[in-house]
């Protein structure tokens, strides 16, 4: 069929342009992170690692990273646990107003975050609760749970119900069945959910900005630093580190999922992963 069509392949041009638009800014991060100039602009002037040294020496940043990790890990764990319960209920049981309930749980996916953030802030003020990392966790659980449900419900729906019945039939208790059959089989979904919700919470800004007290999270810290042009290159360095970590995390998650799928003799691409 070669040569059957003349002229440029517009679809290919579009695809390449799309990829450039999507990833060129991301490539700029590591580029300027190692650039020996305070001003973020071309031409590049020389190679340096001093911005990373600056990061290492900034105490406030370390606090922000620690806060973010606490928030992200807590949010991921809570959202995944809630998500697993909801996904299992959705896959297994019929109950009144199921569709409505599910709809309300999934609503934060499409609700503007700023609305959620303001509403939460007003409510917390009314309740007289003081802002802390835990109020940020509460907000993040709210927005992370729909993602966890979306990921986990495909895992639970793909689970043959007769496997759980077979376990009961062989004398195992309900809890034992969950531990020995259900959990190992939905584990890839659980890991995916943990990683996705962790990532969402880690880089979430609006809710964290509204609900945080004196302890800021990393995105809020980065935002506060952007006011000082001299801090920009070190923020670029921070961005480069976060980028590398994200890629590592995603590769790790996908590797874990494929290994689990291969062990069960399933086609890894059919098992419902993210990549």
């Amino acid at each position, binding site marked *: 069929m070669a040569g059957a069509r003349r002229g440029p392949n517009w679809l290919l041009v579009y695809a390449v342009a799309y990829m450039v638009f999507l990833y060129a800014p991301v490539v700029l991060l590591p580029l300027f992170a190692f650039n020996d100039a305070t001003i973020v602009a071309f031409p590049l002037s020389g190679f340096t690692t001093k911005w990373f040294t600056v990061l290492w020496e900034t105490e406030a940043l370390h606090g922000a990273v620690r806060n973010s990790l606490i928030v992200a890990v807590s949010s991921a764990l809570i959202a995944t646990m809630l998500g697993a319960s909801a996904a299992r209920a959705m896959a297994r049981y019929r109950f009144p107003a199921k569709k409505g309930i599910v709809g309300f749980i999934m609503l934060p996916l499409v609700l503007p975050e700023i609305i959620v953030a303001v509403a939460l802030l007003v409510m917390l003020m009314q309740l007289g609760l003081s802002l802390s990392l835990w109020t940020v966790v509460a907000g993040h659980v709210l927005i992370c749970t729909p993602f966890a449900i979306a990921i986990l419900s495909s895992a639970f729906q793909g689970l043959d119900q*007769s*496997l759980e*019945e077979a*376990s009961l039939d*062989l*004398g195992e208790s309900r809890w034992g069945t969950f531990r020995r059959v259900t959990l190992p089989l939905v584990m890839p979904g659980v890991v995916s959910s943990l990683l996705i919700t962790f990532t969402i919470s880690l880089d979430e800004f609006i809710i964290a900005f509204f609900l945080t007290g004196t302890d800021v999270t990393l995105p809020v810290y980065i935002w506060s630093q952007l006011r000082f042009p001299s801090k920009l290159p070190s923020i670029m360095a921070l961005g480069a580190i976060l980028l590398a970590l994200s890629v590592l995390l995603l590769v790790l998650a996908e590797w874990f999922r494929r290994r689990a799928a291969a*062990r*069960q*003799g*399933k086609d890894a691409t059919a098992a419902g992963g993210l990549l």
Partner: protein
Amino acid sequence: MTARPIIELRNLSKSFGAVQALRGIDATIREGEFFSLLGPSGCGKTTLLRMIAGFEAPSGGSIVIDGKPMDGIPANHRPTNMVFQSYAIFPHLSVAGNVGYGLKRKKLSRAEIAAEVEAALEKVDLAGYGSRAAHELSGGQRQRVALARALVMRPKVVLLDEPLSALDKKLREQMQVELRALQQSLGITFILVTHDQEEALIMSDRIAVMFDGQIAQMASPEELYRTPRTRRVASFIGVMNFLPARMKGESPEGIEIDIPALGSARIPRDRVPEGLRPERIESIGIRPEMLTILFDEANSAEREAEGQVVANSYYGDMTYYDVRLAGQEAQVTISMRNTAGRSVARPGTTVRVGWGAESVVLFD
């Protein structure tokens, strides 16, 4: 058989919302028997099996297993084990992990479990397969693992939910024979759910034919085939020719009936089903192999009728003829064993049809 009852079902019913899945099921299943629940899809046979296993709670009536009422007793505390239609092999465990799954809860040592697992695998001809992964097994092997996993628990009753329906024809036929032989050698009660009447006939000691949530007839395979009680049972089990008929008279020896298509006959008393009111006879049934085409002049039968071949289907060992009986709308199917030197009768051929009164089944 005088074996004691192992399962007693008393006036059992089940509704799902407005749908009545089972109505007034009464049955006693004996120890060591191979019992089949046979019926079309949606007749409630699987629901009944799942109720015995403890996956569904009855809406009414009771289940007694081995003398103990099962009300409120969950599946994990019942002396039954199930082979699922999908086999439900745990995909994340090896063959040995699957078979030994239920033993982990019993207080056995590692070595004892390994020995039990190996013994169970041997029973199903899978000795040495313990370390295989679940996904490396063929359909037939999965079925065997599912069976070994149930047998290793030493259940009082093994429940089989269409265990052979996923296998191809040849393997299915082989497994039917093997499963029956295994059941006989173990002496454990098996309850099989199937929609395949041939499978039920081959494997069972007794069969309960179910329609619309009720047991239509419960009998041995031979009795079920020879004397089906209703037209519906008759047409579900094998092929049956139905012809209109009326009672002409009654005598101590039997019932005199008139079958317009074939002639009249006296049906012996022992062929008249209990509870059938002779004056309400509306039709008779006769199996294709109970009718004969008399190819040779010299051949003769107890009774004869005239007919014309409408169509034939050649099966190699057998030929099935559709024959229109003289002066009748009615067609009958006749199966004839193909013998050396006899060619298949073409459509249009006029033939003599032989039949006997003792092969006639009466229906109201």
